[in-house]
């Protein structure tokens, strides 16, 4: 691929990304009242999106091959328990990550 073609390809990726980020703000500008349906979506979507992001992060984990998702489940359990116990965001995240790293580096 020539340099110009590379620039065009990268430009297309930038354009696509910027479009998906700006579109809602362009369609529903701050000056005009937002339709009730969109306001409703703005309230209920985030919780659903966070659930989707958790699944998205784990999408390549296979239950049937490799370590059978055991390190992921154990580390997630550590995250959940730590967070229910202390409710310190950084502690829960660090604890779960260290646990996962130990599991995949030394056990699985």
């Amino acid at each position, binding site marked *: *691929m020539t340099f110009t073609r*590379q620039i*065009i*390809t*990268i430009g*297309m*990726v*930038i*354009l*696509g*990304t*910027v*479009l*998906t*980020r*700006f*579109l*809602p*703000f362009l369609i*529903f500008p*701050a000056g005009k009242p937002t339709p009730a349906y*969109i306001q*409703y*979506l*703005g*309230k*209920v*979507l*985030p*919780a*659903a*999106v*966070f*659930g*989707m*992001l*958790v*699944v*998205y*992060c784990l*999408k390549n984990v296979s239950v049937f091959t490799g370590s059978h998702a055991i*390190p*992921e489940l154990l*580390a*997630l359990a550590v*995250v*959940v328990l730590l967070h*229910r116990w202390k*409710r*310190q*965001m*950084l502690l*829960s*995240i*660090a604890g*779960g*990550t260290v646990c*996962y*790293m130990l*599991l995949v580096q030394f056990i699985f």
Partner: protein
Amino acid sequence: MSLQCTAHKQPNTLKKAFTCAFPQTVPIFAGFLFLGMTYGIYMHVSGFSFWYPMLMSLTIFAGSVEFVAVSLLLGAFRPIQALAVTLMLNARHLFYGISMLDRYRGTGIKKIYLIFGMCDESFSINYTAEIPEDVDRGWFMFFVTLLDHLYWFAGATLGGICGSFLHFNTEGLDFVMTAMFAVIFMEQWTKEKRHWDSLIGLGASFACLLIFGAERFMIPSMLTILALLTLLRDTLGKGGETV
């Protein structure tokens, strides 16, 4: 979020907002430096100079798409396909935008950058963070976005420059992002009176992952979530079950 801001009586608005924003981004610092370096190394071994990951991390700033862009650059020249792939992979940003219509309101010129830098992580922090009354919301969200952007840029550039010389065992460090989203999910969960939205997000995505596979489950998931939330509008729309 349980992190408390420790900014006390600082006269400077910017300093206060920064002091409050930085601790919230620490998990992203670890995650982005690592993932950014992985991306830089990937570009390096694919035959690109460090200028590519450096400038692409600055201008695109969307992790998963940047990895895909490497294969787009290595393949035949198909600009429309590049645009289509990007739109599909990044369609979830539409959901973030709809959720942030109110929150980004009144942030002035900073709003343009807030929207430009609205990746999964900056959206999640800016949506869930409990910003104290005396901290400027606009600057807080600006610093969260800017710091995330800088971490990703630093990681990608470092990976592109010296990735091939680094040999320390970081296997599993990418779990930091999964752990962060799990914690954010739990925080959202505790704020809800009913858990329909969270369960729909988790359940619909998981079902679509099983049916469509890891490569193509996102668009069906989003459509299913949208359909279910629309169908349940009469039930969920009443009485603020989400905060």
